[in-house]
């Protein structure tokens, strides 16, 4: 990959890790309090992780799309609007 897009790909990696890893830190959220609308922390925290994860993967999608096009252009194989 050309150096111009290296930073973008690292950013994509960081975003994906940020989307995935928090739910594995079980000891941090396996507790009762504080409750929200009757839900113990354990349950509402994990449900709340879902939209956060969506946010990170969505940003990663746009960064990756731009980086992919730059890489292709740099390799002399410009990307054409094919599907969507």
């Amino acid at each position, binding site marked *: 990959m050309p150096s111009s897009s290296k930073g973008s790909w690292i950013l994509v990696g960081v975003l994906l890790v940020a989307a995935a890893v928090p739910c594995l830190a079980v000891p941090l959220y396996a507790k009762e309090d504080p409750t929200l609308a009757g839900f113990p922390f354990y349950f509402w925290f*994990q449900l709340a992780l879902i939209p956060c994860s969506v946010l990170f993967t969505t940003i990663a999608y746009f960064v990756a799309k731009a980086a992919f096009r730059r890489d292709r252009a740099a390799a002399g194989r410009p990307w054409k609007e094919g599907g969507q």
Partner: protein
Amino acid sequence: MSAVAVSVFAFLFLLVTILGFSAARWRRAKSMDNLDEWGLGGRGFGTFVAWFLIGGDLYTAYTFIAVPATLFAGSAVGFFAVPYTILVYPIIFAFLPKLWSVSHKHGYVTPADFVVGRYGSRSLGLAVAITGLLATMPYIALQLVGMEVVLEVMGLQSDSSNWFIRDLPLFIAFAVLAAYTYSSGLRAPALIAFVKDSLIYIVIIVAIIYIPSQLGGWGNIFDTVQNSFDTFNTENADAIAAGDAAPKALFPSQAAGQWAYASLALGSALALFMYPHSITGVLSTRSRNVIRRNASLLPAYSFLLGLLALLGFVALAAGVMVGDPPNPQLAIPQLFEDQFPAWFAGVAYAAVVIGALVPAAIMSIAAANLWTRNIYKAYLKPDATPQDEAKQAKIVSLIVKFGALIFVLALSKSYAINLQLLGGVWILQTLPAIVVGLYTRWFHRWAVLAGWAVGMAYGTYVAYGVSSPTQEHFGGPLAPFPGTETPIYIALTAFLLNIVVVVVLTPILRALKVPDGEDATVAADYTVDAGDEGIVEELSSTTEVR
């Protein structure tokens, strides 16, 4: 049995049957006589269709029944389905676009096709194909288990002691499914998935708002469940201490349970996209971009699954009766029966049964593709034409489904559940061949095959040794990590062993100059996209891609 519920159910079932058969004409191709059309729907699905198809694929009727059932039964790790689906999407995002590109470039239909091309090893391809078939078959059988519990609660099963008469409604539902999968291929589940997901969404949203309001709100539900678990643990303190009963809890508060929880989520997420049916869904998309866009949109389903899982607690708080001896899998359909008006209960039943039809169709297509490409064409009839392949795959899709049906009805249900557990352990052992293969050819092909064999054997052996209060063997997915007391998902331990074997053997085989297979792919193949030369946007039977 309520006549209203059954009528609503029958109407919705009829609707998807018509959709299933008319799907053959949807996005019509010149001919269905090849695997790209029948088995991958023409490889032309956009973001919208793919969202429903992949979602329909992953969230199966068995999930809808089994995940809440584990919470209902008081398993502290039952909620792992949520972190599991959170982990799945970054994983898809990272590696499936590469698999899409190389598969489109070379006309690969199955993951085993890719492995054969990348490693130049037909034996490794066969190993991946057989693992896929072994893991998929019990998964299809479990969809039937999901349908069966709904039919049971609806009162559609007669009391006859003859298993054929008793399960006639199940037979009819499955025969209809088999017929339209045969004629329409992957287009049928893709179209029906719209109905399935809409129904499921409506039912769950209504259930999650309406039922708790009837039960005094969520706070009250969690309190009732906690009290019920505390009572159980006090009354059964001796049995729990003796290991004859498992303690119940809302969530894992001890380190051991937390390790189990995280390892189940991670292992299942890694395994999911090794299943042939998930890869079938992904390869049917129109472009690379569709995959990544979907990876950011699909978590909407995760939220649904999380809420659905909690219905297990709702059922417990509602005092749902699940028979004697108790069968927790009846909890959700029985909750619908008890709490909803008859007509809406009919909608809910239809949602679960249609939710079984979609994945069962995709899984049988994926299994048929694997058989046809990697066993039939690779070993039995190398000169098979695309027409021969499509014909073979259609017949195999029928055999696979009826095999699963007989399996569930004639044998005990617990066989299907045990095999499904093993399926997850087995399928993860194909990850080094498929995923690592997408990034590097450093692994030696024989090392990958040896790692696979060791992982399969170890995982099966350990799973066999797990006993539970109700079962002597295959009692659960967890076993202590070697050298510790900490329970870990067996699939993950076997996978680590698999990787160690591959990494140790690769340099040895290279030093011994054992011939490594020829790689049919080049680096640029992994970044091609729709619109590139040689990548046809939407395939039709007149286009020869191989």
